[in-house]
């Protein structure tokens, strides 16, 4: 972040390069039941991001040492497919993917009623098929839809959105250029029914006022996306 503040990304009418106003989010589609062999699944497109998520379980947790006597364990893996980026992504171990897997797991463990399934495992696999910006948010949001599709009890869905700053203007849902050349990025994971958070990261440079503005953009966007998630889960695609 930073150092690229001279790239002009907001025009004289206050519109962004893709024509959005600062508070607008990109186009989103959500589908469930897209992986026939999985217990629950979700395909989500968000701008030109595309994520697919499969949920398997609750199933036997093995090896036995990972079992918890009082609850289920979540096995969450986030991965970017080799053809998801402009330059091919080399498959294999990757520190970034490991970190995103971990924070996504931490977020989902906060809502899944794990104590209902002692000694078992629920596997959540997030695959990014096309990456633009904000893939961790798409992955986490789609994962909560896939868990619901699998019938796993949760206290709430998780909606994850990022806001940030470009050319000193706070904007919602950064696209690729805005993410590359912007000055800050604030992804959050929000429980839409209570407004509570289960996931929070930030990098860049925001004043206290800008921070509050970005926070509010995320809260507002979460309500919009939540509506689409509910529609998708009720049956039929959500556009």
């Amino acid at each position, binding site marked *: 972040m930073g150092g690229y503040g001279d790239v002009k990304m907001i025009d004289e009418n206050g519109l962004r390069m893709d024509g959005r106003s600062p508070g607008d989010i990109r186009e989103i589609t959500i589908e469930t039941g897209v992986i026939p*062999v999985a217990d629950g699944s979700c395909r989500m497109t968000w701008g030109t991001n595309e994520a697919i998520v*499969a949920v398997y379980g609750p199933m036997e947790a093995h090896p036995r040492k990972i079992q918890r006597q009082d609850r289920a364990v979540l096995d969450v893996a986030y991965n970017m*497919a080799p053809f998801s980026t*402009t330059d*091919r992504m080399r498959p294999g171990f990757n520190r970034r993917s490991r970190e995103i897997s971990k924070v996504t797991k931490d977020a989902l463990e906060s809502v899944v009623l794990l104590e209902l399934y002692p000694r078992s495992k629920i596997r959540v696999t997030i695959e990014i098929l*096309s990456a633009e910006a904000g893939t961790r948010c798409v992955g986490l949001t789609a994962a909560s839809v896939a868990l619901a599709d699998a019938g796993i009890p949760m206290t709430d869905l998780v909606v994850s959105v990022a806001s940030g700053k470009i050319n000193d203007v706070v904007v919602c849902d950064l696209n690729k250029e805005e993410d590359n050349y912007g000055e800050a990025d604030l992804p959050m994971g929000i429980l839409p029914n209570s407004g509570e958070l289960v996931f929070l990261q930030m990098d860049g440079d925001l004043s206290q006022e800008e921070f509050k503005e970005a926070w509010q953009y995320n809260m507002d966007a979460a309500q919009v996306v939540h509506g689409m998630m509910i529609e998708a889960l009720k049956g039929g695609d959500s556009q």
Partner: protein
Amino acid sequence: MTIPIVPKLLRAHLSELAGKNARIDGRSQWEGRKLVVEHSVLPRAEGSARVRMGDTIVLAGVKFQIMQPYPDRPNQGGLMCSADVRPIAGRNWEAGPPSPEAIELGRVVDRGIRESGCIDVDSLCIIPGEKAWQVILDLFAVSDDGNLFDAFALAGIAALRNATVPAERFEVGEDYSLPVSKTPIMCSYHKVGARFVYDACAREELGGDERIHITLGDDDNVHSLQKGLKGIFSAEEFVEIMTNAQTRTKELRKIVDSL
């Protein structure tokens, strides 16, 4: 991949069905599942395809890199094919480095495409000895309900046939369609209940024995063969499936060529 316990009941059921010339999902011996092939489905790939055969779904994506030609072949580019079956595709597939099963998948598909000569590696050279295109075909399983081999091979050739060489992005000229001169097609046969069937589903793979993969080119020439898993087959059985493969590959080639 964890090898699931094969219930004796499933094997018994499959061989009872075979005795009545029936299959577990109601198909006949040489009947394939409902097939859908789509291309240009991945926005970041230079060529892509999605294949759905029943509940088996796979993706193929083509990416390009600039490589330095190998010293002994200064006028040639390269083709690399890799398959990965990640845990998303089924409960028995596990995370980690590619399993022997996934490696076999990638290599068998690779051989069929490579040996058919459908991609002229000489045409991939940009500056002899210095710069050439490396074509990378990545095969990705979304949902494994059996016969990933045929799904991967079909998606792979469909993605290559619809790929664009991104010369502008690499500043080596104008974009152009990747020349692919042939359409190699794979057909796979599994021994289920003491006879071979075409396009086995996951339950047939689980309760079956050996499998044979045949890749044929445009002129019925044989480009790759592979026998996998424990089992014994006769020359007569092989002639029978080879005859079937000649018919079936023609039908599938028509679908791929018309995309």
